[in-house]
Structure formats: structure tokens, C-alpha cells
């Protein structure tokens, strides 16, 4: 297993640049990408942020207005698949719309996780339009303290 996050180097570089330019941490120099319109463009939906600590991998997906009954999560090895439906507005004549900027529809997205996870202990929470998935690392992928004996 030799997964290397190709973006981590860029992330480090970005932070270095921010520091050099005197931008306080947490406020990025680039405009935040916040588009979350499914079906509007050939971009991945939902947008996800991945973070980790020694115990877990956390996936946070930006997905407001999901139908929770149709939300499905599958984990296989180190791949997580999110699929579901964002409900649109039904029963309104097209000419009654003044604005229609929110898109809707079915979506499916698979993301590769930084390490193998224990699929049986995955938990997910959906609150205020954000889906937070906690994936405990598989025992084999967890860092282990090695005791050194002096001899």
C-alpha cells in the first residue's frame, strides 16, 4: 500500500505562501470554491473535504437538501461511494419561476481515502446540509508505538 496524497505538497506550498504574504492561517489567499450545484456542470458532486488524525479519516461533503432516505454510503477497501438525490422543486409551472439557480438531481461520487478503513465502524451524520462521515482506520493501517528494549 503506497498511497501518497499528491495534493499535500501543494497544500504545504500554499500555506508557506500564505505565511510569506502575511495572510493569517485559516484565511486562504485563493477565493474559496463553494459551488455546490449538481447537474449544472460536469464537476464532481458533492464537493468533499478530507481530513485525518491517527485514529480516523473524516470526510465532509457539502450537500444541502438531500433526501436522507435515498442517501447511500458504501465503503470498500479504501474507496468511499456517496450516492443520493437532491430533491428539486416539484409541481411548479416553469413560467412561475423568477429565478432558478439551485439545481437538483441524482448523484454518485467515489473518493479514494488515504488508507484502508474499518467498514463496520463507519459512522455518518447529516446536519445543516453537511454530511460528515467518520471512518476509523483499519487496524493494519494504524500507526503503532514500538517499544525499544535496551540490551
Amino acid at each position, binding site marked *: 500500500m503506497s498511497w501518497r*496524497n499528491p*495534493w*499535500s505538497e501543494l*497544500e504545504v506550498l500554499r500555506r508557506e505562501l500564505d505565511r510569506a504574504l502575511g495572510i493569517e492561517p485559516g484565511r*486562504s489567499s485563493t*477565493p*474559496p*470554491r*463553494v*459551488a*455546490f*450545484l449538481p447537474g*449544472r456542470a460536469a464537476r*464532481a458532486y458533492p*464537493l*468533499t*473535504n*478530507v*481530513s*485525518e*488524525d491517527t485514529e*480516523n*479519516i*473524516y470526510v*465532509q461533503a*457539502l*450537500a*444541502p*437538501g*438531500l433526501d*436522507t432516505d435515498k442517501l447511500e454510503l458504501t465503503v470498500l477497501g479504501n474507496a468511499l461511494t456517496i450516492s443520493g438525490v437532491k430533491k428539486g*422543486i416539484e409541481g*411548479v409551472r416553469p413560467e*412561475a*419561476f*423568477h*429565478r*432558478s*439557480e*439551485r439545481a437538483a438531481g441524482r448523484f454518485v461520487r467515489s473518493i479514494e481515502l*488515504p488508507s484502508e478503513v474499518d467498514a463496520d465502524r463507519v459512522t455518518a451524520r*447529516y446536519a*445543516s*446540509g*453537511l454530511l460528515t462521515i*467518520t471512518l476509523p482506520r483499519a487496524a493494519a493501517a494504524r500507526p503503532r508505538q514500538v517499544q525499544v528494549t535496551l540490551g
Partner: protein
Amino acid sequence: MAEKTVATPVEAAGQASEKETTRAEERYIAPPVDIYETPDGLTLVADLPGVPVDGLNIQVKEGILTIEGNVKVESPGTPVYREYELVNFFRQFQLADTVDTDRITAQLRNGVLELTLPKAEAAKPKTIKVELG
């Protein structure tokens, strides 16, 4: 319903802009909305992910509807891969005089805000019966 804040074109929808005041520290984005007419008035639906009920501020002042959402999100762990960054939401609309501002109702569910803007009684169509004499 006219837009007060500058409309975000679809191409630039992913970019946040700075509020047009010098002292405002925070950045904001205009949330995408759907506005449609119903027999009783207008309904506005907006996507506001990450905004809890107590972070939402809706105001009507001098015919201008302001929707402001303060994002509250806890992200555990150290980031390894980022595709989005949540910032606060802000958008304003000019309301028509026909909206009965006292009866506006709001509902927030799963990051989606639904605002009902009922028409004033005076603005509703009335059928006048003509009597034959």
C-alpha cells in the same frame, strides 16, 4: 423581485467576493436561490449549507429583504484534501410593494431555507360580480 446584491453569474458562482465595505472583515458568498410564484405569493428557496438556525438572520427593512447566514462548522483532524471552504452567506432582494412583510415565514431544513412571502390582500385579484339590471 429585483436583486440588490450583484447577481453571481453561473461561471463565477464558485468564487466568493468581498463585501463592499472597508471595515467588514469577513468574506461572503451569495447563496443560489430559486424564486417562484404561487397563487398566494412568492416562495424563495436558498441553499445555505453549514448554517444553523441561530446563525441565520433574515430582515426586511425599507422593502429590502436581507438573508445573512453565519456558517458554523466543526472539522476534526488535519486537512489532507480540500475542495471547498465555507464562508458566510449574504444576499439582498428588493421586494415588491405587494408583499405582506408581516406574514413572511421561514423554515430551515438540512441547509435549505424556504421563505414564504405572501401577497397582501389588496394585491390579490378580486372577481367582481356584475349584476344584470
